[in-house]
């Protein structure tokens, strides 16, 4: 299946591992990603705070290019912020005529035009879950991730794309959990899975950001996670690159590798680690990945159903 692909600035360098692993797993799944030619930055969370119409025009140029180049009506963004901005701008352009009129004029100045609603913006996770599906992913698994304890971390913008509908639950998303399950991993019920990583707060007020990052790391450590799987370059950067700063600030000693869910898919598909961008993470994932075993973990003992009313379990029974 053919998809338009909007990598976003992070994927070019900082989150290169996400980019290479996305392309590596796309192949066996039969996905062809066609990168939007000459795309520009989506403005992250910064531009809209400065100037409204230019912020919408900036994003609209990408939508116009994607529609013009006509590779597919679906445009996939693996970065949460890019996904939100593309989707939100398209949504508000459809809703607000005055805004649309101004953005039209701005695009015209660059010889472009865009019909709002003609591009369907998807996050990569959405593509995997909704279009490809768990069965097709499972069919590609050659080396299951047995005994690897993974905390699935969604962050904010994929479960909560502003006031628009998400493909998953806004507070308790489960789609990545299910992908990791079919990969054979032991998926942790991670309570803070949809909490904020702090976004750009590391640059504005580091103290605020470090506390948010600490909570996420502590929660994963408390759940005995071997690693955290993410779907966003910003989340990966904050949890990975600021882990040392968290340890220094709070006197902790967290060493939790933060990897992209596509990297884990790649390992399970038996794609060599170097083609998946491993080694780019600051907290190395390699020692943890060695925990993967060839045998599936024994299923949890299920307590026999006792008849009658639920009663506290007595010590001699336990």
């Amino acid at each position: 299946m053919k998809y338009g692909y909007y990598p976003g600035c992070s994927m070019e360098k900082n989150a290169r591992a996400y980019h290479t692993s996305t392309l590596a797993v796309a192949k066996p799944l039969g996905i062809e990603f066609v990168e939007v030619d000459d795309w520009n930055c989506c403005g992250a969370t910064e531009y809209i705070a400065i100037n409204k119409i230019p912020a919408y025009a900036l994003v609209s140029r990408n939508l116009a290019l994607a529609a013009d180049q006509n590779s597919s009506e679906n445009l996939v963004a693996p970065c949460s912020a890019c996904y939100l901005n593309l989707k939100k701008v398209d949504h508000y352009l459809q809703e607000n005529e005055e805004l649309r009129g101004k953005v039209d004029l701005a695009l015209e100045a660059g010889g472009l035009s865009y019909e709002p609603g003609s591009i369907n913006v998807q996050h990569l996770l959405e593509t995997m879950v909704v279009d490809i599906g768990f069965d097709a992913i499972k069919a590609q698994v050659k080396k299951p991730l047995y005994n690897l304890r993974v905390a699935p971390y969604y962050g904010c913008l994929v479960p909560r794309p502003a006031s628009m509908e998400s493909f998953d639950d806004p507070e308790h998303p489960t789609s990545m959990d299910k992908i990791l399950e079919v990969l054979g991993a032991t998926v942790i019920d991670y309570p803070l899975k949809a909490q904020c990583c702090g976004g750009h707060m590391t640059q504005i007020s580091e103290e605020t950001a470090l506390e948010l990052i600490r909570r996420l790391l502590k929660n994963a450590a408390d759940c005995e996670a071997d690693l955290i799987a993410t779907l966003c370059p910003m989340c990966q950067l904050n949890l990975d690159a600021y882990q040392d700063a968290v340890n220094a600030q709070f006197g902790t000693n967290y060493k939790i590798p933060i990897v992209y869910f596509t990297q884990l898919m790649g390992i399970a598909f038996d794609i060599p680690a170097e083609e998946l961008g491993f080694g780019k993470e600051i907290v190395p994932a390699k020692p943890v990945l060695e925990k993967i075993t060839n045998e599936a973990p024994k299923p949890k003992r299920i307590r026999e159903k006792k008849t009658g009313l639920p009663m506290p379990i007595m010590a001699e029974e336990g």
Partner: protein
Amino acid sequence: MTDTFTSRPPTLIDKIIAETPGKASNLYTCIQCGTCSGSCPSGPDMDHSPRTLFAMIDSEMEEEVLTSNTPWFCVSCYYCMVRCPQEIPITDIMYTLKRMAIEAGYFREIDKDKAPEFSETFMDLVENNGRSFEMGVVMRHHLRYHPLSAVKLATGMGLKMITKGRMDFIPTKIKNLPQLKAIIKKAKELGGAA
């Protein structure tokens, strides 16, 4: 301009709603329940909780609202927005407040951590390259406002990012930069009210 509902001259709340896309008029229906403040991850570090800020908006405390650090400490996590019983687009309102603070010239006074300048530095680089440039934005921002932390960055985390090949020394430029600049220039002419 008079308000659609009351035909009185526009108040602070009217101006904020007019500047915000989506169902911003729901702000009139805020019931001060505090769900937003309870959901806010950076609430403890804000001058005013989001709920307090909305009460202040309702009370026409324009200067206090526009000099509050609250919008600048919003991390855009959208928790308040999905939980608000009145479906107020709170995050979008925070963006509007940032813009209004800049337009009113107040933002130079919100110098707690130079949040507005961070956004400006970021966008300056995007307008000139078409792409964001992490090393550029971080170094320029920190050298200007936190010289000590720039040194810390360069020797600590920044160095690790560079050795891992995760940071560029030079920005990437898009091919058709004149086109982007023409679009942005036109948009800026139109950019005031919408």
